[in-house]
């Protein structure tokens, strides 16, 4: 009798502890979002988006060059990571039993776990050292390398979800395997893949470590892919560890822009997925 009461008590305690751990994890999330919004909003003004950084020590100035830089870096990265990711994902999904598919799947998972700073060191070796020049291209390559595994695995997972009947229909009408994939299977999975790509873009836009010694930083406006370029993240880092009060304020504003971007993409992806599910199941 007593023993059973103890068991029930233990069970109740554990259930509460589990619920409590969710709260414990959400407290820092709330704290971070609160500070980013409340501190960031104070420094966020029109200048932030339109002005270049002020000379060291002078107040004012903005992140215009950093915003353009981040867009360029993400663009360069996506330009090669999306094709590589999608096509390698197609191969893994289409020929899952081959040795190459197993290796590529393993490689994508491994790449996903490689610390971002190590990707930076790698790209420094292949794209900075030979030219003795930090550049937007090098920065874009490191972001692309970070992006490839996410796109590869998303594409593979989504292609596997396409009902086999669709492909069989195309094959029965005389399409080759490649043609069936290209014109029937891929379009069916496309909305999901695009959602995955948007999430991956949001993730690499928030990366700092791989840019530190590839894209480096630039206090001036630059749109030249062969020159060092500023980015939101590196600029936030530089300002955060600086001794200037005004730069700290601007760092918070930069953080607010980054977090808004990530939140916007996450919510967009979530809503899109929900809509797609509804469309596919027909409810």
């Amino acid at each position, binding site marked *: 009798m007593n023993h059973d009461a103890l*068991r029930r008590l*233990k069970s109740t305690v*554990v*259930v509460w*502890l*589990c*619920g409590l*751990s*969710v709260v*414990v*994890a*959400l407290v*820092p*999330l709330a*704290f971070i979002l609160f500070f*980013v919004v409340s501190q960031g909003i104070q420094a966020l003004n029109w200048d932030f988006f339109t002005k270049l950084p002020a000379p060291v020590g002078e107040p004012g100035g903005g992140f215009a060059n950093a915003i353009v830089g981040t867009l360029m870096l993400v663009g360069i990265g996506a330009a090669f990571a999306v*094709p*590589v990711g999608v096509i*390698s994902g197609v*191969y893994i999904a*289409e020929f899952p039993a081959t040795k*190459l598919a197993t290796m*590529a799947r393993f*490689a994508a998972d*491994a*790449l*996903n*776990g*490689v*610390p*971002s*700073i*190590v*990707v*930076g*060191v*790698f790209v420094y070796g*292949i794209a900075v050292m030979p030219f003795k020049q930090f550049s937007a291209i090098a920065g874009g390559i490191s972001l692309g390398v970070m992006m*490839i595994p996410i796109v590869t695995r998303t594409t593979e997972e989504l292609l596997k979800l396409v009902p086999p009947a669709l492909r069989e229909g195309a094959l029965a009408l005389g399409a080759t395997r*490649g043609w069936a*994939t290209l014109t029937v299977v891929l379009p069916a999975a496309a909305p999901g893949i695009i959602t995955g790509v948007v999430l991956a873009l949001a993730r690499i836009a*928030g*990366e*700092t*470590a791989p840019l*530190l*010694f590839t894209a*480096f930083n630039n206090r001036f406006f630059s749109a030249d892919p062969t020159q060092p370029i500023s980015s939101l*993240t590196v600029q*936030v*880092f530089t300002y*955060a*560890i600086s001794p200037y009060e005004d730069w700290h304020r601007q760092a*918070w504003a930069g*953080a607010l822009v*980054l*977090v808004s971007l*990530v*939140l916007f993409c996450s919510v967009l992806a*979530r809503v899109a997925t929900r809509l797609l599910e509804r469309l596919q199941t027909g409810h």
Partner: protein
Amino acid sequence: MRGWLKRGDLGFKLGTGAFAALVVLVVAGIGFELWRQSALSLEKFGLGFWLGDVWDPVSGEFGARPFIWGTLYSSVLALAVATPIALGIAIFLSELCPARLRMPLTFLTELLAAIPSIVYGLWGIFVLVPAVRQFELWLPASLKALPIFNGPPVGVGMLSAVLILAVMIIPFTSSVAREVLKAVPNAQREAAYALGATKWEAIRAALFYARTGIIGSIILGFGRALGETMAVTMVIGNNPQITLSLFKPQYTMPAVLANEFTEAADDLYLSALIEIGLVLFVITLIVNTASRLLIWSMNRPARAPRAVRVTQVAAPAGGAA
């Protein structure tokens, strides 16, 4: 016509295969490039590189042991803090949560993984570090005599790094653990309930069934902690020393890369830093592979429940082997 079709199919396989091979090449390329660029340091210092305690690039002394220590110490402590919380979340979301709350709570906990590392770092510098400093000042002197609490109350240091790392790895462990728990057949829980188990006892049965995958999820969190760069760099204090103290500033492998890479004036210094990158790459590769293998082994249908295996063993020789 048939020949053309076949050739087209072969082209499709080769064309897409080239890109799959490219993904493999990138990973191999990272390993090769890091090894090639660190040759100078590998040759000059050999194993001694990882045994030395003094890191003084100016006088050409490169001992990387403090970085290994800082990386492992911070990651292990972060794991100790994060694992119970992450597993609690996974259990709550997969076993206990009311269906209506499940989606929003899952979304919120996974949002922790979406916040950029630099934002964690910024928050760390201006919010967490001052709070930790207050805690360090408040702590009674009798406790400060303990080796883990001695040191100056400056805020930046191991404790801040551990706390921030813990928050950052929670979503990784909890989301994989949740998936693993979701894959546990309901029969496991129902069997436990049928025997009169309480809720916790039924959950324990599910946890036991899923144990390899759960361990995989924990190791995955460990791999993330090892490689985390920006947030740790901004709060750990960046001072290469080997100490148990939570209050003293220390240094990690990713942090030294982030701080010193662009300052490395001579080839040997740069090569030494790249060797740190190489070792970090190898360690995280091993850790992540171990974690993947454990998680994958969960999904394999070969993992039949014990009861079924017993019947197979007991079946007469006529049965399939």
